[in-house]
């Protein structure tokens, strides 16, 4: 049971990381959203057998992590949670595509393995960039940024409230789990059957609570828009961040830096 409380405390990781004052946190959320989106598009634009060319792009998530002071351990844990999707998507590639496309030493490597590795690499790059960007910005600022970029507020308010509702749900859930555990005398209580009833009552309890939260919001003038006092203003640093990264992505896409480096090191320049 102690375990479940630790896990629950972890859900707040995003806000905890985002609430710190970091160089990444000071960058305008709109700029971060656009660059991260551009990064993801760039990564996805590579061919299915390209691995080496993708590697230099890792600089973006790495710089975000450093700028946002995001612990690597954290990011890796979250990556692992999301990884089954990527792992299963490409699972059959090695079986379906047996055409050798490159040789490592004297071993021929099938195209399926290469494309599978490329899928995993793209997954790691894009998801870690998105996670690092979120950890350095916070849901709240991301929503503000999206709204300022023209995303309908119906959508951003949904995201925001959904995120807040998660905590409400967790809080109510924890109380019920605790109450059940304390009266089940260390056994499994009434077993699985009781969980059905608990889920139903959890839903009703959270609905009730959410309604109270809603009333409290309405009492303070909530009308469907979440307004804030911090106004977003693009500063010089933001422009440098945006132009710098977009420029780099374009350059990396056009110039095969990894290939050039390899050529340089193996002395192909002769």
């Amino acid at each position, binding site marked *: 049971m102690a375990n479940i409380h630790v896990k629950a405390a972890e859900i*707040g990781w995003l806000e905890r990381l985002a609430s710190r004052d970091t160089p990444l946190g000071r960058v305008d959320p709109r700029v971060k959203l656009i660059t991260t989106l551009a990064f993801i598009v760039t990564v996805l634009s590579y061919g299915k057998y390209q691995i080496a060319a993708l590697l230099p792009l890792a600089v973006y998530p790495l710089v975000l992590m450093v700028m946002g002071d995001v612990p690597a351990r954290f990011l890796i844990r979250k990556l692992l949670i999301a990884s089954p999707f990527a792992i299963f998507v490409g699972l059959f590639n090695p079986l379906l595509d047996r055409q050798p496309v490159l040789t490592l030493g004297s071993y021929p490597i099938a195209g399926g393995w290469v494309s599978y590795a490329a899928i995993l690499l793209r997954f790691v790059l894009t998801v870690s960039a998105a996670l690092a960007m979120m950890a350095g910005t916070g849901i709240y600022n991301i929503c503000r940024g999206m709204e300022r970029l023209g995303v309908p507020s119906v959508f951003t308010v949904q995201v925001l409230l959904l995120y807040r509702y998660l905590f409400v749900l967790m809080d109510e859930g924890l109380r019920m789990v605790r109450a059940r555990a304390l009266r089940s005398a260390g056994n499994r209580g009434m077993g699985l059957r009781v969980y059905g009833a608990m889920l139903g009552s959890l839903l009703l309890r959270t609905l009730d609570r959410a309604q109270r939260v809603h009333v409290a919001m309405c*009492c*303070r*003038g909530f009308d469907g828009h979440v307004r804030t*006092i911090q106004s977003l203003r693009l500063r010089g640093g933001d422009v440098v961040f945006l132009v710098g990264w977009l420029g780099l992505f374009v350059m990396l896409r056009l110039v095969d830096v990894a290939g050039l480096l390899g050529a340089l090191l193996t002395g192909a320049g002769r």
Partner: protein
Amino acid sequence: MSHHIVEATDVRYAYSDGTSALNGVSFRITHGEAVAIVGANGAGKSTLLGHLVGWLSPSSGTIRIGDTILTQQTLAIIRRTVGMVFQEPDDQLFMPTVFEDVAFGPVNMGLPHDQVHARVASALATVGMEHLAHRPPYHLSGGEKRAVAIATVLAMSPDILVMDEPSSGLDPRARRRLIALLMSFEHTRIIATHDLDLALELCPRTIVLHKGQVAADGPTAKLLTDPAVLEPCGLEKPLSLQGCPVCAATGRQS
């Protein structure tokens, strides 16, 4: 000053499952009064408060705040006039930081930024919580949460403060601080509470609810010492007015 008057006329309300919670409640509270609403569990206190901020609307009867009768159309005006502090501060605080939470109301009122800042600063200073401005609300202690919840309402400068169980869950010192704070306000205050000592100290007037009706309405000191009022309504004399058990025991021995 008719605009700070709170008047309920024969308010009746039944929940959707048929339970009737209010059976014709009428009262008139004038400007600057501090009124306690007391009553046993299920007497209709929370239901009544729900009506004052338009969260519930009466099945029949009217609620009037100042010159405005509460309807769906006047809800926005009413909610600017009436500030409600909920029983559970966790229901009230939902923004990522204390500062933003207190600013939520004023920003929604469309105030310019410098005024919002000034209001947040003064509301937090009033409740003595300036140092918590940049903390997330869900990490505060119960007493701090309550104080911040009050600040969120103060920042909207309401004329009328409605509070549901403000002293529940507070330790003695936090409760004492809350009483001192509420004493210092000049708003019209309507406080639903089980803490009869708080009622006695804070509110010159008390309305006793019983089974959805006003069982008594008058000076707190008189009502809360009258067994004929208290007993049928499931209440007891405030502890401060009950004989001290230690002294009583020594008195018997001698």
